[in-house]
């Protein structure tokens, strides 16, 4: 078990570095000069050149890459060219907010999809099944930006139950939860719509298995059949799907953070990309890659929880 964990964590390193390397070169291949962007068109060229030299942008690309790699090994992520502040500080200042949002959305999506997928499966082709399918398709079809504004207009402006924007307080306080609900639900609904369809299909497939028929023939109540025999055996595809959904949640968070003025990594990343702030984009990419890999590691643990036949070592 421990060996497995160490092996997986070691595998993380080249993957995370690979992602950051792609970001490193992609950002530099895109046209644009980070120093000129922040200095403005009227700044004297010698002053602009001075800043380029300070950040090493005047060096050949491969030299810049080598320097960057050696910094990463030493745990240095460089300074933001736009603010002068260490990139690691700027990223970690906002990481918490993004994690709060994405993990909450993940949990909301999980609960909704399991609940609705199960309801749809046990009422196959009935009214509830059709209702769930309709809602799932609706959520899937709505752009996150529009959905967020609609939820805001109804539940924060017309009927002011929730605050409109901002983070409020720490996530374990009532004020924090109130601020979190609308952005989390906005981020969760499209994901929940898709996952609910998968849960339904998976449950229906398991329901047609011989051992389920045997359980029913023993006279077990349908509720017990579903919870004891069907649901657990349908979890593997759900875990896989939810793990795969996490990167999409990080992507969606960029838009939701903008709509709800949520102070997460999304808004920082957008500004950094537009300003060609290399240190920030690379550091953010490193963190997001690491989080996605950790989420997959978590999924692997969940496999073994769901199915004892799966051994992690």
């Amino acid at each position, binding site marked *: *078990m421990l060996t497995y964990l160490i092996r997986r964590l070691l595998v993380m390193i080249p993957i995370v570095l690979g992602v950051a390397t792609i970001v490193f070169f992609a950002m530099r291949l*895109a*046209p*644009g*000069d980070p120093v000129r*962007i*922040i*200095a*403005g*068109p*009227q*700044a*004297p*060229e010698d*002053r602009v050149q001075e800043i380029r030299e300070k950040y090493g942008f005047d060096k050949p690309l491969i030299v810049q890459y080598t320097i960057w790699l050696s910094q990463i090994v030493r745990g240095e992520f460089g300074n*933001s060219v*736009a*603010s*002068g*502040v260490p990139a690691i500080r700027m990223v*970690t*200042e*906002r*990481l*918490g907010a993004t*994690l*709060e949002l994405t*993990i909450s959305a993940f949990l909301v999506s999980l609960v909704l999809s399991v609940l609705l997928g199960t309801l749809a499966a046990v009422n196959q082709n009935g009214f509830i099944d059709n209702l769930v399918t309709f809602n799932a398709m609706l959520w899937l079809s709505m752009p996150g930006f529009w959905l967020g*504004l609609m939820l*805001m207009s109804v539940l*924060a*402006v017309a009927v002011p139950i929730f605050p*409109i*924007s*901002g*983070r409020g*307080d720490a*996530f374990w306080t009532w004020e*924090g939860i109130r601020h979190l609900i609308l952005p989390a639900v906005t981020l969760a609904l499209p994901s929940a719509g898709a996952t609910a369809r998968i849960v339904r299909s998976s449950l229906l497939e398991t329901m047609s298995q011989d051992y389920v028929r045997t359980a029913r023939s023993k006279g077990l109540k349908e509720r017990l059949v579903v919870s004891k025999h069907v649901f657990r055996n349908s979890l593997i595809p759900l875990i896989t799907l939810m793990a795969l959904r996490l990167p999409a949640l990080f992507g969606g968070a960029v838009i939701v953070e*903008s*709509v*709800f*003025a949520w*102070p*997460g990594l999304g*808004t*920082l990343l957008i*500004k950094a990309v*537009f*300003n060609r*702030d290399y240190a920030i984009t690379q550091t953010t990419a490193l963190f997001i890659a690491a*989080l996605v890999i950790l989420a997959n590691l*978590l999924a692997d*643990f*969940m496999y073994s*929880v769901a199915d*004892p036949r799966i*051994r*992690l*070592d």
Partner: protein
Amino acid sequence: MVAKGSRAVIAVALVLSVLAFGTAVAQVTVTEDTLVTTWGGTDTLDTFRSALAAPLFVLGLVCDTLFAFDQNLQPQPVLVESWEQSDDEMTWSFALKEGITFHDGTPLNAAEIETYLEELFFPQSFTGWMFSNVEDVLVTGEYTFDFVLSAPVPLMIFNLAYPWNIIQPAGAYEEYGDAYGYDALVGTGPFVFEEWAAGEHVLLSRNPDYTHGPSFLENTGPAHFDQILIREIRESATIVNEFRVGDVNYIGIPTSHLDVVQGDPNVTAGVVTNYGSNYIEVNASGLFGSDWRMRAAVNHAFDREGYIQAGYFGAAQPSYGLVTPASFGYWPGMDEFGKKILYYDAEEAARLLDAAGWVLPAGKTVREKDGEPLSIKLITFNFWQTQGEILAAMLTEVGMDVELFAFEYGSFYGVLEEDDWDLFLAGWIDQSGFSTLQSLVTTAGIPKLTNVTGNSNAALDALVELMNTTPEPVVREQAAAAAQQKVVSDLFEIPTVLTLSYAGVIAEEVGGFELLNAHPWRLGLILALDMYRK
């Protein structure tokens, strides 16, 4: 293999370890004496690191310039008591107001000014080039100093009023190092920087010792509000919603959102004259550069009214000059003059193209010359993609084959370096009173990236130079007028529309909005000093 319970514990521990990041939340107590407003945020408040416009909003509340522009774009003293230019025009002498201290306790005196300007501002500021003729800052007394010049700078006080040219204590830069502008901002302004919670808000508190506001404001003493909370919200619809429920007192929004709030009886809304000057730039080294008839054809193919309706839903005005009322050198006669040249006439455009040798072969839709099609590349920013498509359609109507390339702002300088374009649909928001003409059309005296057309015209350079250096207001106005007439006649820059891009909207319970609404841009000093809770 470990026990099932242990696996669950590890899984929960993984979740909790990532959630542990989510504990730091900045809290602010909003009272009746708090003015709550919004901004789009920025990366730094240090003007030596960024020349972007976003920081100005906070800088204008915390820091002072020696002079500030009033609503008529005339520089008025803020930190300065008196000033004069020597007869030979080679020295400017200034006397500071006495008794002013920076927020960190550093006294504002001539020695502090000398240290700040010579050691920090001149070498590091992106606007330091404005003072390239200042050879020496000479301290002549505790509160008096001279600028000793290498050449006359008659408009020195205009340059000193430029909002990026703030005065800060040199010691604060030393104390905070790279974190200055992020963890700290020190000025002499009416509000003291308290904190900047990244992505959330900037909090400022009243400077009780402030007594040196410019005379064009009603209030020149301490601010009426105890604190200003500037929340970072980027999405306009969210800003409007926050305002409508009363959580924000003052907002700046695109004029297209005005109708949403104007129906509310509790709202005082006014359009702040934050002018956006929009134009088509012609690449002097491209297809249109050497032939005035080609540029005139583009001019006459452009239908301003149709463009405004289709591209701006009517929320813009036709533009006949580059310089807006918010910019130095504005000439009120420009509209009348420009209308004689800048008008839509597709038939005239076709005639001009015919005369230039680009004819429309029978049965074809694209003009040709010596067997080559009239294929052009139109570039613009991605946020003007729709407007670019409309312009492309207009040019197609007169027989041009238009390739539209829309790029995001970060690619701007890279695209310019490639120099692979014929027309550039561009724009400029005037919010500083700075000379648009100097930036956009001259090739002398300043870094050249702003005149992207590459058109070099000695007569035009001379006119703008005269406009910037003459001490005579009448001569200045004449030079500005002549320069603008020349710009429009040459057609390397073809003005398109004037956008009143932002509306300032204030809640009914807050007063002191009138001057802010009359000023060419949202000057922080007005916001800080004149606004009050009714």
